[in-house]
């Protein structure tokens, strides 16, 4: 019977799931994904996480507990750094240590993924994980190459404007890309950590709602990493959070795009990097005169309140596009 490896549907799942899945499957393991986020999953996580950690980490606790009993191993790497001289976030660094304390969970694959000193250091992590399944180095290397290929394909799909859920569906079913829907009049940039905006439970399906309300949604993932990086390098000092840098670069890039009508920043309550990047983005948006909405999510956020704010925001954006707001401003 193949070893069952559980992957929590949380945090960087939205970036690396195709890669992880392919890697483990190539090595002969069976990959089990935790169930989609629900109130039940979150409540379970809230029981065991300290109050101060942010919503996505609390949700991760829930997803790990959801996997308990269903799998032999849980893949929960210590994501220290996925790119040279950058970090993810202190909570990612301590995540395996926070999770390990939970009773009744299967052993963790808590390999250190640390490319802080050199991008090639990833090989160490690959080898370490691969050895759990096979001693054939060539097989490990092959699995890694194949998973990398899938990863690149996934990111190309994201750059086409697909949301992670859609891109995953395309990868899974091996169907041809559906033609993208006709662009709407309003284009809104949704800036936030991938695990906040792409989890329909956490974000209260913000992407779907915006689309229903008649807006195109573009996120930081729709932008090639290089472009985001070059825009982010305009800052006086390089941001040392990979995700923060991507969000910052995307925000700066989108703010200069003439077809952008508004920007929404989504942050989890108490998120450290967001408190800094959000402030910089908001200040920049204000100077550029871009309509800006800042949403803070936590486990208490009421859905109705968010919908009202989204509707009001889109109303404001369309009024501004119709010239009404400008007219009032110039007449007063």
């Amino acid at each position, binding site marked *: 019977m193949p070893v069952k490896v559980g992957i929590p549907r949380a945090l960087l799942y939205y970036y690396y799931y195709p890669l992880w899945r392919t890697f483990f499957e190539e090595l002969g393991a069976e990959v089990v994904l935790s169930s989609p986020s629900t109130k039940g999953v979150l409540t379970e996580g809230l029981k065991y*996480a300290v109050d*101060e950690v942010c919503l996505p980490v609390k949700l991760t606790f829930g997803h790990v507990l959801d996997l308990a009993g269903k799998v032999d191993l849980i893949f929960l790497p210590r994501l220290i750094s996925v790119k040279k001289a950058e970090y993810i976030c202190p909570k990612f*660094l*301590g995540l395996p240590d*926070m999770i390990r304390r939970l009773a009744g969970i299967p052993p963790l694959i808590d390999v250190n993924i640390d490319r802080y000193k050199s991008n090639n250091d990833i090989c160490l992590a690959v080898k370490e994980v691969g050895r759990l399944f096979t001693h054939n180095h060539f097989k490990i290397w092959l699995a890694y190459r194949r998973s990398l290929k899938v990863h690149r394909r996934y990111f190309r799909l994201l750059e086409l404007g697909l949301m992670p859920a859609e891109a995953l569906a395309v990868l899974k079913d091996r169907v041809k890309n559906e033609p993208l829907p006709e662009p709407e009049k309003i284009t809104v940039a949704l800036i936030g950590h991938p695990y906040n905006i792409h989890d329909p439970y956490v974000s209260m399906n913000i992407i779907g709602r915006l689309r229903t309300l008649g807006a195109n949604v573009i996120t930081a993932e729709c932008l090639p990493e290089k472009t985001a990086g070059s825009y982010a390098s305009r800052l006086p000092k390089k941001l040392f959070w990979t995700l923060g840098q991507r969000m910052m670069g995307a925000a700066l890039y989108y703010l200069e795009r003439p077809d952008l009508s508004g920007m929404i920043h989504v942050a989890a309550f108490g998120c450290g990097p967001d408190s800094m990047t959000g402030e910089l983005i908001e200040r920049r948006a204000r100077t550029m005169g871009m309509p800006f909405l800042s949403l803070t999510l936590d486990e208490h956020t009421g859905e109705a309140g968010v919908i009202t704010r989204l509707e009001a925001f889109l109303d404001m954006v369309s009024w501004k596009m119709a010239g009404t707001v400008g007219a009032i401003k110039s007449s007063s």
Partner: protein
Amino acid sequence: MRVTFPHMGNLHISLKAMFQTLGVEVVVPPPCSKRTLSLGSKHGPEFACLPLKLNLGNFIEAYELGADTVVMAGGCGPCRFGYYAQIQQAILKDLGCALQFIVLEPPQRQITELLVKIKQLAGSRSWWKIIQALRFGYRKARLVDEIERVALRSRPREKIPGSTDAAYRQALDLIDCASSWEKLTAAQEKAKEIMDKVAVDFSRQVIKVGVVGEIYTLLEPFSNLYLERHLGGLGVEVHRSIYLSGWVNEHLFHGLAKGMGSGKEARSASYPYLRHFVGGHGQETIGNAVRYARSGYDGIIQVFPFTCMPEIVAESILPDVCKDFGVHYLTFIMDENTGEAGMVTRLEAFTDLLARKKEAKEALSS
């Protein structure tokens, strides 16, 4: 150039000494106060941590006093502190405070990176003079830390309440006023004398508590609502895990000055609870908690600012450490809304608990 810097406990004493030796004009911001905090939280990002807000308040208040240049430390993550200067600069610019920033980043490869920035500050003064100034400032930091240690020891044992604090302030003033090496040596003797004069009763039974946590909230008494003083008043001997000179030695001098307790031991003690550094002092918090628990302290208090990422990781793990070693712990999270009275109540309850447990333990062992 009129230089100012953020407050962090008694940091201003050494920085002032350093700049004055260099002949750079210094504007010491007014001590952290309610006003500093409300200025900072008004203009700072809502979810930024308390030190950022207090520092911002310091800069605004120093600007009002005529400062035009800010000197502060930087960092390279993953803690937010590394990006403080850039955020504060953006905020101050929007506020119309024309302050120039000189950020001393910890040298990534070699110490020269730091020295270049210092040269920018010092202008045409010779390297010899700069090194002397650095040494002088560092010496003051070590003396101040020594005085703080003595104060922590004598506060719970003082015979006349408040006498330690009076002596402490007097001793700090002496160190602060010394303007040359000779005067500093004299001031050191005098300060030691003053601190020794505090009438203490060493036969008194005191509870020993180790304080761990984030460096700013540990060092700046205003930000921890005078935690150490309150604990001292309750008859608790406090041992603090982080001191200014130790931090400077480790992060700015790369451990150049030997013979000081380094964070290395603390970090290795954190295994197996926290197996990797998490930025800031998260791993040191766990490591020091283990060390305090091993050396028989009665309790551990963790202090950190609201939303501090590394300390949240430590907070999640601290219960395990304390359960394994059978010590009690208490966590204080500081933000602009924290009330002093609430904290004192919790401290009183905590010390009562510790005292009773200690009594029971002694009754059993005797």
